[in-house]
């Protein structure tokens, strides 16, 4: 039987206490978005390489080992390889371009290679940037940062705080429910349930086989919800009431500098006309 919890990487946080870790989450979120824009908007190989190097630098600045950041990548590798091959072969050669090889609609051309090279680098850059951000920011910081950034919207009756709380509770119960699902799978398998042994084409049997998992999972989740609501009420939670906040988000000059550097970097990458 599988260890479900092993697959869940959401909320993995690696406290190394680096300067990136200590950034004000609001600024970190903004810098993160800018960085992602820079990584995803350019089709130039050189621009993508520059972003990739910058991503590695950010990772190093956050003191996160490369191995750790790439961990989540392993399951995706087959899909990435298949997509690369498809992109390479199905890419239409540009007019007047040398075509190295052709067979029906398949062809191999320099512009195809260029495109694939740019996308592969882009893919790795984005993975590194996302990892750097999530591994250096605790979930609560992300939700609190988001709450603060959305706060101006609450003047337009947008429930910024409630949304942040909902996200927090959701993230809080992901591991709990995953553990529970694992436990239920094992329990029902112990009673002879044929979980994971029914062939794929027997759809009805497969769906019926899920009921013993889904029903108790929902019933238990609802019960948990009820108890949690009671526990929150017992601790004085009243929806809509003004609350104070246990977060010391104090921006420093460094945060502003980081965001400005990111912004300048992004504009530079997008504005400079790189040859390839």
């Amino acid at each position, binding site marked *: 039987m599988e260890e479900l919890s092993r697959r869940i990487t959401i909320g993995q946080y690696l406290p190394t206490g680096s300067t990136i870790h200590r950034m004000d989450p609001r600024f970190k979120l903004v810098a993160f978005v800018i960085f992602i824009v820079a990584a995803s908007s350019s089709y130039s190989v050189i621009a993508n390489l520059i972003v990739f190097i910058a991503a590695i630098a950010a990772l190093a600045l956050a003191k996160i080992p490369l191995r750790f950041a790439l961990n989540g990548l392993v399951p995706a590798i087959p899909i990435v390889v298949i997509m690369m091959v498809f992109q390479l072969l199905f890419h239409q050669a540009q007019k007047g371009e040398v075509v190295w090889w052709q067979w029906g609609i398949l062809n191999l051309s320099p512009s195809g290679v260029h495109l694939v090279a740019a996308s592969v680098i882009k893919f790795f850059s984005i993975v590194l940037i996302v990892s750097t951000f999530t591994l250096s920011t*605790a979930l609560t910081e992300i939700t609190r940062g988001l709450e603060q950034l959305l706060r101006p919207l609450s003047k337009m009756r947008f429930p910024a705080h409630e949304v942040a709380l909902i996200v927090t509770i959701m993230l809080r119960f992901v591991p*709990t429910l995953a553990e529970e699902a694992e436990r239920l799978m094992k329990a029902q398998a112990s*009673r002879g349930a044929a979980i994971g*042994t029914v062939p794929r084409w027997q759809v009805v049997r497969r769906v019926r086989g899920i009921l013993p998992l889904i029903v108790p999972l929902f019933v238990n989740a609802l019960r948990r919800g009820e*108890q*949690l609501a009671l526990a929150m009420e017992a601790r004085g939670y009243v929806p809509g009431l003004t609350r*104070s906040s246990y977060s*010391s988000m104090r921006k420093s000059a460094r945060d502003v500098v980081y965001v400005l550097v990111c912004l300048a970097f992004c504009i530079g990458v997008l504005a400079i006309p790189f040859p390839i």
Partner: protein
Amino acid sequence: MNHVQTENNRVVIELVDACVAYDNPGGPPKEALRGVTLEIREGEFVALVGPNGSGKSTLSKLLNGLLIPTEGTVRVRGLDTQNARNLHEIRRIVGMVFQDPENQMVSTIVEDDVAFGLENYGVPYDEMVKRVEEALVAVGMWEHRRRPPHQLSGGQKQRVAIASVVAMRPHCIVFDEATSMLDVEGRESVMEIVRTLHKSGHSIVMVTHHMEEALEADRIVVMKDGRVLKNASPRDVFCDEVCIRDAMLEAPIATDVAARLVKVGWPVPDSPLTSDELVTALRRTIFASASPPRRPNDTPVSFPSFEAKAASRKHRASAFRDASDDAGGPLDHLGVPLIRIQHLTHTYMRGTPMERKSLRDVSVDIPAGQFVAIVGHTGSGKSTLIQHLNGLIRPQEGSVVVDGLDTSLQKTDLRALRRIVGLAFQSPEDQLFEPLIGDDVAFGPFQYGMTILEARERVKFAMEAVGLGFDWRDRSIYNLSGGERRKVALAGVLAMKPKVLILDEPTSGLDPQSRSEIAKRLVRLQNNESLTVIWVTHQLEEAAQFADRILVMDSGEIVLDSSPAQLFADVARLSSVGLRLPEAPNLVQHLNGAGFDVDPSILTRDQAWLAVDDALRRRMGESKWKS
């Protein structure tokens, strides 16, 4: 009022004639509380006990206005819970810790969770930082403040829940069965905090099934059928045999032994509650009596059932000794034990940074028909070991062979194995999914392709084995009590008529009566159906009472493997793996330490008083002979 109110007897919570009735669609309203009048005073430690469904939980929810009485009043520091505007303040005064540690944490990080309540009251940031630190230090969780809840043990989570309440600086803290889902270690750590809180002047209301916890209270409130049956000091409650029986409680062993000695004529004074008090009382008994009381003819020296049990234990114990003498001796008639585990090693999350060895080179044989208890702390590898026995986990290294099926071979049919080995996890009632009892119990038999008639016969067998009549099969699962749901889940496993039955904490969270009922039914099954039972528990009392053999696990290894009597004789080794003696051997050890000569092989309460009686008689005979 005439007398001057001192700080000590100011009332924090006051209930006057409080009634609660729940809506019951298609029937008269269900009365959970029928007129409760009660006071909780400042600095008082009150235990709330009673069987499942007696209204304890409902009562505890009245105390901070989570429930509003349908009749009568509840006032907290004079604030009526009936008035919704008072509730915010009331919940600051009366904090509450719930049963399930998992379902009361809001945040993804410990310290944020502790701050949640403070945020609700608009406490300014700097003050919050101070109070969160104070509270986490008080429960010993400060160094875990940045960790997510799912990385904590149950006991640690519960300590965080307490810190969350403490940070709000309440006057009174209600613990609603807050220790019932914890292991011994977790429970002890929570009780330690409760004691400290009580000492520092907090009022404590503790809803509990554990009598040793209730014993520490200043006052015990016994509930039964929505009413207060008795409201008195622990001594008065535990010496009231009628009350104990009616509320299905269990007196402390010292009280029990003393009461039974009194019954046969020993003048034991003072109704002792602890072993220390029993020592004093027994010394005074010897002083006070010129000769031992005459044995009435109709009272046997020892109960036949006890002797029979002892004899059968001796018989089985010798069978076990044959089995464990590995020097090529006869094991079973086939020459192979039912379960053979060899050099089993398991690593969780192998190849990740969270990698952790949960089993290290475990080898053990279990012959058919044995009742084996596996004890050890959370994380000692018990759970991993039992999951290997029905192929939920295949061996990474080593082998597991059950009834000839080797799970280390890929071709082995695991479903066939699971028909032989029935396994029920902790809180198995959580896995019920059919609306009707009978359907759920029949799930296993149908999975193995049995006909309706066969399945029906299996369901009948299983339901009767756990003590639910077959006529319950058409009842709805959702109207059952916790104990009944537990029985249905166990029946679901028994319906497959397994040869081996593995149970992970089958009695946790139940009241003392349901606990012993389930245990006794399992022993009967073991005898009648020649079932092999493997019982995972952290309650050594249960292991002492029922098991032929105890395996003690510690950090992935089986560190001790012996019969209960041998194991409890070796106190030093037991405490070296952090286990405490069960109540009966513990009492005997205490008495012998004080100079009484009680048979040290005692395992249960029923044996304990007879052995003490015997020791007293010998002592009296001796002293008379000397004079």
